[in-house]
Structure formats: structure tokens, C-alpha cells
């Protein structure tokens, strides 16, 4: 355990440094900035017809939680691990006195930190700028409510952790992990995450829990239309259904904890047992 605690923070710090200095990270920073840009632009465009809470909720759910969070998290989780393997620098770690658990958990933690940094920056810009629009009365009658404004924080904190754990498990085990990650985001998170709640399978997605936490966090009155649309969608159009079909915050947190835990156990299971060769062809 001493070796683990010695190596783990070193690997986290080194990986974060490598990722932040990578040019591809800039691409994802630019992509993340699309969210506050769209949120601000939509508020300015539609502010005379819709409440700012409604606009913020729609953009945050559609662009941030269903788009940015899974894409950014999956990319960084997979790339931090796969680049270490593909570049063969992993050889120095696995042949040194570094416990493999420290390698994989270090990579996972670094990916989470980078995601929090990028997604947090995007969310912060939206949170800082949108109230200004309301306060100045710019095409809005009332300012955005605090409850709605801060509703994305909890899911934005937890969802990247789950996605990164899943991405790490893919990357540790699979050579084409980036493709698998993309298929997972589109095929599982988008498609399965959009099945009627009654089917139950939706609770196995990260996006369902993130949506639920966000749904329960927003102001019920200020974002009434958004909540109504969510309920109708969650129930498959049955208006007599209640929000019981949307998991409570504690259930959503539990779901994410289970998904994260299972993915990390699988990542360690594969990562501790597998041989990682330093070359595809022998000498």
C-alpha cells in the first residue's frame, strides 16, 4: 500500500500535466465553450418569449448533459490510458515498482480532474453570464432563479466520474477503446437512455441519473414547462404519470455510484491481470 500511495499522486499529476499540454485538449476546450455560447445566444434570441430558466434548462440538458459531458469524459478517460499503452511509456511504469492499481486509478483520477476543469469552466461561464442577462432586464422580465442556476452542479460533478470509470474500463481492456466508447455514448447512453422509463433499462445509463438530478434541482415554478416536458417524455406521454418515474436524487446518486464502482472493479480486474507488451512485433 505504501507504493500505491507514493505512486498514485505522482501518476495523477503527471497525467494531468501531459493532458493539459496536449493540443487536442484545446480542441475540447473549444468544444466545451459551445455550451455557454449556445446558452447565452439562445437566451438573447428567445428571451422575450421564454423564461430564462426554461431556456437554461433546455440548453443544459440537450447540449451539456447529453452532449458535452459524455463526449468529453469518454474521450479523456480513454485517451489517458490508451496513449500510455500505445506510446509504450507504460513499460516504464509496469516494469518499475509501481502497483498497477496506482497506474489505472491514477489515469482515471487524472481524466476526472481534467473533465471537471473543462466542463466546470464551461458551466461557470454560463452560470456567471446568464444572471447578468436577467438582471439587466435584457429581453428578460425576471432573473434566472438560483435553484435552476445551480441545479447542474451536482450531476456535472458526478456524471464525469461515472463516464470516466466506464471509459477507463474500456481503455484498459480494449485496443479500439475509443471506437467502443463512441458506440457506448451513442448506442447506449443516447438510445437506451431515451427508452421509456417503464422499461427500467434506462436506469443503467449515466445520462438518466444526471437528468434526474438536474430535474429535481431546478425551480419547479420557474422551469415549469421544462419539468412538464420531462415528465411527459419520461412517462411516454401518459399525462397521469407523476415524477415517480424519474429517480430521486438519492437513487440517482446510488445508480451512478454503482455504475462507477462496477466499471472501476472491471478496469482493475482487467488491468491487474493483463500482459502489456512493449511492442507488437518481437525483436
Amino acid at each position, binding site marked *: 500500500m505504501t507504493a500505491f500511495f507514493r505512486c498514485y499522486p505522482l501518476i495523477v499529476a503527471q497525467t494531468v500535466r501531459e493532458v493539459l499540454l496536449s493540443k487536442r485538449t484545446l480542441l475540447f476546450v473549444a468544444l466545451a465553450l459551445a455550451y455557454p455560447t449556445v446558452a447565452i445566444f439562445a437566451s438573447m434570441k428567445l428571451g422575450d418569449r421564454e423564461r430564462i430558466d426554461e431556456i437554461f434548462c433546455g440548453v443544459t440538458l440537450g447540449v451539456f448533459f447529453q452532449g458535452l459531458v459524455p463526449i468529453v469524459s469518454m474521450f479523456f478517460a480513454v485517451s489517458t490510458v490508451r496513449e500510455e499503452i500505445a506510446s509504450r511509456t507504460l513499460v516504464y511504469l509496469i516494469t518499475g515498482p509501481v502497483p498497477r492499481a496506482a497506474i489505472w486509478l491514477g489515469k482515471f483520477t487524472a481524466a476526472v480532474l481534467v473533465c471537471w476543469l473543462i466542463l466546470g469552466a464551461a458551466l461557470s461561464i454560463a452560470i456567471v453570464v446568464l444572471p447578468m442577462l436577467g438582471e439587466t432586464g435584457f429581453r428578460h422580465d425576471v432573473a434566472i432563479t438560483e435553484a435552476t442556476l445551480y441545479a447542474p452542479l451536482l450531476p456535472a460533478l458526478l456524471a464525469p466520474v461515472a463516464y470516466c470509470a466506464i471509459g477507463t474500463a474500456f481503455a484498459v481492456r480494449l485496443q479500439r477503446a475509443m471506437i467502443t466508447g463512441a458506440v457506448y455514448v451513442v448506442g447506449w447512453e443516447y438510445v437506451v437512455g431515451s427508452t421509456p422509463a417503464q422499461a427500467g433499462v434506462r436506469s443503467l445509463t449515466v445520462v438518466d441519473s444526471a437528468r434526474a438530478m438536474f430535474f429535481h434541482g431546478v425551480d419547479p415554478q420557474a422551469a415549469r414547462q421544462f419539468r412538464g416536458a420531462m415528465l411527459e417524455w419520461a412517462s411516454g406521454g401518459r399525462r397521469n404519470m407523476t415524477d415517480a418515474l424519474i429517480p430521486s436524487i438519492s437513487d440517482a446518486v446510488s445508480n451512478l455510484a454503482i455504475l462507477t464502482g462496477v466499471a472501476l472493479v472491471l478496469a482493475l480486474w482487467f488491468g491487474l491481470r493483463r500482459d502489456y*507488451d512493449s511492442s507488437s512485433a518481437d525483436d
Partner: protein
Amino acid sequence: MSGPTTQPALAFSRVSLWYGNVLGVSDISFSISSGVVGLLGMNGAGKSTMMKLASGMLRPSIGSVEVFGTPPQDSTEVRNRIGLCPDMDRFYERMSGIAWVTFMARLAGVPSAKQKAAEVLDRLDMSDRMHKKIGGYSKGMRQRTKLARALVVGADLLLLDEPLNGLDPIGRHAMIRLVRELGDEGKAVLVSSHVLHEVEAMTDRLLLLHQGRILAEGKVHEIRDQLSERALQVEVRVREPRGLARQLIGADHVAGVDVERDRVVARVADAGLFFDQITNLGCDERYGIEAIVPLDADLESVFGYLVRK
């Protein structure tokens, strides 16, 4: 090659490894306690596979690999005693040499890691370049940086996979001298190469590897002695080659003789008897024997012979 009382630094016991259906190494057994041992084989012989097995990067399909009595994959303490210098030269390219070596030393729990890294890099003649980014290093500098990583942890077992690759003549000379020094310091060093004279310059203790199998092991002259069925070629520089050839050709221990203008090349079946005879003939002034030179006791010819055998 192992000492009778000390625990071997590295011990392979009937090790075989398959890559899918392809055999990497087959039934390898040997041990090293200290000093430099050369792992010699052509490309594809399985040298890097053996390095990977020794470092714990790969697990054997059959048999066991032990470093100081423990499989390297089972113990971080044991891996702390291994210094691997792999054949590939990949790094975190944005780091400087000293930052990378310091990072590796910190992972290994080396106290005063940065100071130790600077000392090792200085020993490897990298002191003026260690603060530059690795991405701008030449092949030779990268080789030395890899070796610095192996040395900075104070490893007792050094696994150097083709350490002379890419080095200029001065760098090669320095590296050869360093490897010999490490062996003299009592470290166990397994150094691989496919270039015979390189290995010969570093050590006379060899493992000859071919197609995943150990062809021979021991000192160069011991390996040579194992080849009793092979005719040794000896050149005798002489004033009267035809007369000497007549004397030699009738002897049972001489398999054949080639006569040239000022020399005789004899194919010798029993070296002991031949050298007794040639010593006696050397006293006879009629032949004028000037020099006796074994032509193929060097490593390259031994290896070539063993591979063909």
C-alpha cells in the same frame, strides 16, 4: 552461471512463452548472479521477449521466472531492484531528461530523487543537456536517458536491451565501459545484442539464443570447447608450406589442409594433439613456422556455426 551459494539475481526455469500460436521462447533455463552476461541472437531470436519476461512485463506460458527468488510480477519490492532499459525509446517527450528521470526515481521511492537523477545523468555525460526536452534528444541521448532511469533506482539487476543501438562510436565506447563497470560493481547485468563484437566487448559470458531457444551458454572459450565435433581452423604462417602440409596431412587429428603461398590452413579435429604436433614442428627450422593463428574461435564464427548446426 549461477554461484553455488548465492540466490540468483535472475533465474529462468523451463520457461516457454507463446504469442497466440507463435512460440516466443521455448524451454529456457538459466540463471545469473552477478556480472555481465551477454544475450546474443539474431533479430527475431527472442531476446526482447526474454527481457520482457525477466522484467515482469510478460508472464511465461510455462515455467517460472524469478528475480531474487520472487516472480517479478508479484512484488513491487522486487521490481524496485530491476532496472530495465528497453529497446524502444518512447518517453514523455515534453519533459526534460532530468524531470523524467526524477519522476521515475520518485515512483521508485528514491530519496533526494532530483539530486540522484542529476548525479546519474552527469555520470552518463548528460549534464549539459539534461534540462532540455526529451523530444529534442538524439538517439544516443535517449539511450543514455533510458539507462539513467535504470541506474537511478539503484537496481541490482539491469536488463539492457540493445543498449548500443543508435550510439556514435564515442558513445558506444563509453556505454561499453559503463556496462563493464556495472558488472565490476557486482550488479547482475543482462545485455542483449545481435551484433557479436559488441557483446564480446562487454563480456565473455554468453547466452546464445536462436529461434527462441538457448543454443549454448557459458564463456566464449567454453562454448568453443563444447564444439568438439567441429573442426577448428588454424592458420600457420610458414616459409615452407608444402613441407608442413605433408607432415600434417597424415595425422588423425587433422581433417584437412589447404596450402597457400606462405601459409597452411588446417582443419583440426583435436586441438590439443594438433598444438602438440605444431609445437614440435616449430622447432624444426626446415619449415620456418612464423605464426599460429586460430581463425574461428571468435564469437561470430562460433555463433554462425551453432546456428547452422
